[in-house]
C-alpha cells in the first residue's frame, strides 16, 4: 500500500495538481487495494508557486511535480 498526499491548495491547483489527482484517481481504480490518496490543504512547501505542485509519495516529497513523475513513483512502489 502506498500513500499519496497531494496538495490541493490555491497554488498547487493552479499549476496542475488537479490533473495529477485525476490521473491518480484513475490509477487507483485499477489498484484499489494498493493506493491510498489523501488530498491535503496547503502544506506551505511550494515557496510561493515556484515549487508547486507539491506531492508526497510515501515519505518522498516531490516538488514541481508532474503527472508522469508522480505516477511512475507510485507504480515503482506497488509493483
Amino acid at each position, binding site marked *: 500500500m502506498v500513500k499519496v498526499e497531494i496538495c490541493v491548495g*490555491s*497554488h498547487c491547483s493552479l499549476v496542475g495538481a488537479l490533473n495529477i489527482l*485525476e490521473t491518480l484517481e484513475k490509477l487507483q481504480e485499477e489498484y484499489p487495494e494498493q493506493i491510498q490518496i489523501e488530498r491535503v490543504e496547503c502544506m506551505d512547501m511550494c515557496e510561493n508557486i515556484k515549487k508547486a505542485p507539491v506531492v508526497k509519495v510515501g515519505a518522498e516529497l516531490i516538488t514541481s511535480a508532474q*503527472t508522469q513523475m508522480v505516477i511512475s513513483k507510485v507504480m515503482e512502489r506497488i509493483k
Partner: protein
Amino acid sequence: MSKLKGIYTDIVKIRRMVFAELARLALKDAECEEFDKIPYRIIDTEEATYRSSIFKERAIVAARVRLGLGMDYETNQEHKLLSEGIRNFLKNDNQLKEPLVNVIRFACEKCPTNAHFVTNNCRKCLAHPCSIVCPVDAITIEEHAAVIDQEKCINCGKCKKACPYEAIVNYERPCAAACGVDAIESDDYDRAKINQDKCVSCGQCIIACPFGAIADKSMIFQLLKSIKRGEDVRAIIAPSFVGQFGPLVSAEKIVASLKELGMKEVREVSLGADFASLHEAELFAEDIPEKQPYLGTSCCPSWTYAADKHVPEVKDNISESSSPMIFAAQSVKEDNQDSKVVFIGPCVSKKLEALSDRVKDEVDYVITFEELAAIFVAADIELTKVDAEEEIRDASYYGRAYANAGGVAEAIRQNLKEKYEIDPPITKADGLAECKKTLIKAKAGVLDGHLVEGMACEGGCVGGPGTLLETTRGAKYVTKFADESPYKFAFENDKLNKKDK
C-alpha cells in the same frame, strides 16, 4: 473535443503564469515598466526550454501579456517596448475590443492543413487496396510506398479505412479540427488565421493548439483595478464553478474567497438560469407552433453567434430571451444601482456578449475560472484555508444543472410540464459542429415543434475553455451541487419575484 482538453501542459502553465503576473501587477499598482519584466520572470532560464529560441519564448509571453491586458494583437514590425504600448492603452479607454480570439502569429508552427499522408508503415503490398478504393485515382504505387497526389486527393478517407497496416493517417491542423464552424484559414505565410466573419469566439482552438499559438483577451487587470479603486464590485458566478478550485474548496469557500478578494456580494448565475428557463417556457407555450416553428435556447453566446453568422435564416427562432448571465446581472443592479458586475464562468464568448450594446451596461467584466484561480494566487488567498459560514441557496436544481449538456432544455421542459402541461420534443446540439448541423436542420424545417438546445462546448459549459477541471469531473460536481439545492423547480425559487414565476 480537443485531445488537449483537461491535460495540464506547459502551454497551460505559461498561460496561467501570465494571468497571475498580470493580477500581481494590478494588485500592487505597479508602474508600466514592470510589465517589461514579465517575459523574463516567466521564462527565467538561460537557454530555450520550449521552443527554438529563448527570445522567441519571451516574445510570445510578451504577446500574451498584451492580449491578457485586453490589447489588440500587434505584429512585431516596429521597435517598441512592451510597456510603451501598455502605457498608451491604459491611458486611453483600456477597453477590450473585438477580435476576442487571436492567433499569436509568430508562435504558429504552420501545421499542414487537412490532408491524408502515407506513413512508413506502408509495406507496398501486392493488394494495395488504398489505390483501388480511391474514387479520384490519387494514389500511385511508387518505388518504396504508396503516394497520395495531394492535388487530386479529396480527403474522403477511403484509403485510410482500406489499408491493412494502418499506414495512412489523416493529418489535421488541431486548431482547425477543433473549430466547429471552419473559421480557421491560412495567411500568406501559411500560418493559421481566424476568419472573424465565421468565428463565434467559443475558444476551443485556444485549448487545441499544441504550440500555444492562440489566445483570447482578458479583463483581469480591469477588474482588479476596479476593486482597487474601491468600486462596489459584485460577482455573479456560473453554475459550473463547483469543484473547479480543487476538491477541498466548497462552493461556500469560493464565495468567501471572492469576498476576501474585495467583492461585495456573490450570486449564483443559476438564479438567472431559473429566471431564463421560466421565461423561455413561457415563450414556448405562447408561440410554438402558432407564431414560431420551434424555439432555440438563448444561453450559449457561441450558439447564437453561429446562428447569426452561419444560418441567419433561423435567427428569429433562437430565443430573444436574455441569457442567465444578463438576468443575474440585472438582479444585482436592481438592488445596487452603482455596482459593477463581474461574471465569472468557464466561457470565452461571454466576454464578447458582455461587450455588446445590449449587455455592456449590465455586465462590466467577464473572467474565467482559470483567470480567477490565477488571481487568487496573486492575491495570496489560500482557498483551502478560507473560513466559510454563509450558505448559498440562490437557485433550483434545474437552474444549477444548466451547466451540463442537456441541462438547459431539461429545465425549460420541466417548467413546461409543470406549468403548461406541455412535453415538447427536444433536440440537443452538443459541441459547435453539432450546433451548426442542428441550425441547418432547423432551417430545413426538420425541427418544427422542438425545443432546441445549443451548447458550443462539448459536454456543456463544464467543457468550457476557461475551466480547470476535466469535463466529466466538472459535470459530476455540478450534478452534486444541484442535488443540494433547496428547490427543485425554478418556480419554487423564493428569490424570484411572483410575477416572474
